[in-house]
């Protein structure tokens, strides 16, 4: 029994990392006032870039950085349209997702079915000896440990530093931030590109560590789930980590039932769970919300800024 729970928990942790990275990045973009619905497209391209850079260099670090760089580049495109050209951010993000999906499908043709770089599990000394917990959290691939570091770091930067204050100010009231000398465009560009790097990192995690290799549409909507988790998390990094774990847990249940051959629930119903549960948490968080549906969303989210008003 305990073994089963440990097994599920370990896979849950492993399955939640991509959503966790992407959600953390999207929190930064949205906290600065930029809505980026291109996460799915950026993750797909990050996944492909990870495989491509991995097969070109054979180095997992460079492969990961490749995924991040491509995610960041795509986010730069969205940033240019959303911040400089002041277009409708919903549409720009959708365009980015369509473009990323198309590009990854087109360029990924060469990598389908090819043996890919695999990230090895790294057992953390001492910590992995802790009963149960060590098994769940400290016998994973290095990118999982990166998530343990980036989430608290991201929270600290956002709420405990001057830069974090600027980011939140720009997302709440760009005009006031501008009036006291904050460079609104620069902060927004930075946060949007950072968000893209994180989405790319999530994608690279999928194609390098989680299910090594390139498969068309391998993100399976995790980018969208990440965006939903940002709302569930009310724009707080730690809660996004929990939301990602929820997604990972439902994914792990599928594996568990498949591995043990228990047909309690039809396999296709299990496959629907992550999406339905995401909708469910959105409902719960919106019903609990007492602020007329704007929730804890940054007040300037999705609104382009210009001095002319």
């Amino acid at each position, binding site marked *: 029994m305990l073994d089963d729970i440990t097994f599920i928990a370990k896979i849950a942790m492993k399955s939640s990392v991509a959503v966790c990275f992407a959600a953390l990045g999207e929190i930064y973009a949205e906290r600065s006032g930029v809505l980026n619905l291109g996460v799915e497209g950026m993750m797909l391209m990050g996944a492909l870039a990870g495989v491509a850079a991995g097969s070109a260099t054979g180095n997992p670090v460079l492969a990961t950085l490749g995924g991040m760089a491509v995610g960041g580049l795509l986010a730069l*495109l969205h940033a240019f349209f959303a911040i400089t050209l002041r*277009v409708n951010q919903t549409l720009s993000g959708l365009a980015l997702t369509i473009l990323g999906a198309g590009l990854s499908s*087109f360029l990924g043709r060469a990598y389908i079915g090819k043996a890919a770089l695999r990230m090895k599990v790294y057992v953390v000394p001492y910590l992995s000896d802790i009963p149960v917990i060590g098994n769940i959290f400290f016998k994973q691939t290095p990118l999982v440990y990166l998530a343990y570091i980036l989430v608290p770091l991201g929270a600290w930067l956002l709420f405990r530093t001057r830069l974090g204050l600027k980011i939140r100010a720009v997302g709440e009231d760009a005009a006031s931030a501008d009036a006291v000398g904050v460079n609104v465009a620069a902060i927004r560009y930075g946060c949007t590109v950072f968000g893209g790097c994180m989405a790319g990192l999530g994608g690279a995690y999928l194609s390098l560590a989680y299910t090594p290799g390139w498969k068309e549409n391998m993100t399976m909507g995790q980018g969208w789930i990440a965006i939903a988790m940002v709302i569930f998390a009310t724009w707080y990094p730690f809660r996004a980590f929990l939301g990602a774990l929820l997604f990972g847990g439902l994914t792990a249940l599928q594996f568990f039932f498949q591995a043990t051959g228990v047909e309690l629930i039809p396999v296709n119903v299990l496959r629907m769970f992550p999406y339905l549960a995401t909708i469910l948490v959105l409902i719960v968080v919106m019903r609990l919300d007492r602020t007329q549906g704007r929730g804890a969303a940054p007040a300037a989210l999705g609104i382009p800024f210009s001095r002319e008003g």
Partner: protein
Amino acid sequence: MLLLEKRHTRLKHQGLITAAIALGTALAAGAIVMAGYGANPFAAYAAMFKGALGSGFGLAEVVVKAIPLMLTGLAVALCATMLLWNIGCEGQFVMGGIGAAGAVMYLGPVLPQPLLLPAVILCGALCGALWALIPAYLRVWGNVSEILTTLLLNYVAIIAMEHLYFGPWRDPDGMGFPGTPLFPPTAMLPRFGDTRIHLGLIIALLLVVAFHYLLARSKWGFSVRIIGNGPKAAAYAGLNVSRQTLLVMAMSGALAGLAGMGEAAAIHYRLQEGFASGYGYDGIIVACLAALQPRLVPFCALLLGIFIVGGEQLATAMQLPSSISRILEGALLFGFLLSETICRYHIKWASKKTA
């Protein structure tokens, strides 16, 4: 850095400028990608446009693709007129296919034969509408963003369809091939001549005309446009936004469902792998390019049809992945957004100066 100044006069030939910039961006982006892939973009485009426009077969196929694109484009445009983003057309499309196949499975044996086709059409529309009502209801009752719910339900719909054609609805005579049984002739939408163009074309065009007049001339269309102007305007006019949200989303879902029904009852004659090929997402692009106006939807649907057929032809002619059409679509939408900015602002290049 770039400076944007609001234009106070409308640009001349705005429509032409928009079309030119959007198309130019799409073709330029596609060329860059193909060149990077190691293919000659000019040869590729030549193959694409020759394949799509150079023969009767190609032209007919463009129209075939434009049928579902018209319906999903209309579906997205209708919602967007009211500031609702229906990104769930793909799922509603799949549900329309499920409705059509379900009608064949369960009503086929009991209904009088002449009534089967109308039942298939109605079930397709109904299933799409019901699927769209879920996010509509969540939006009205729980204030949940319909963008995310419609989109997440796409995945659920596709899994449901896979469940059906791999499981309970699987064709026993399918020789191991996963799919539902072939529709009987009485449930097939008639095709024109020896092309794959089908009755769905007439249905789609009639609906385009209907929604053009409804939105432009009717009291209901007026209220939809008022709500689209923002919640304040709607409240001031005393309109029931909730009821209208449910109604418009249901209509939108029905349109997307009809598109799926058409693909099931006139193209594939069954549900199978690859049934959900992205027409729902394409609808977003059709609606945007048509500036949310029903009367422009058919033309934009034809344009995207050319891209899709061209992509398929390119795959056979030059062994390039057909997903080039997706890249062109994404770039087309970016180009459209760029043209919007150009039409709205003077874009000036200014050196850094202290303001």
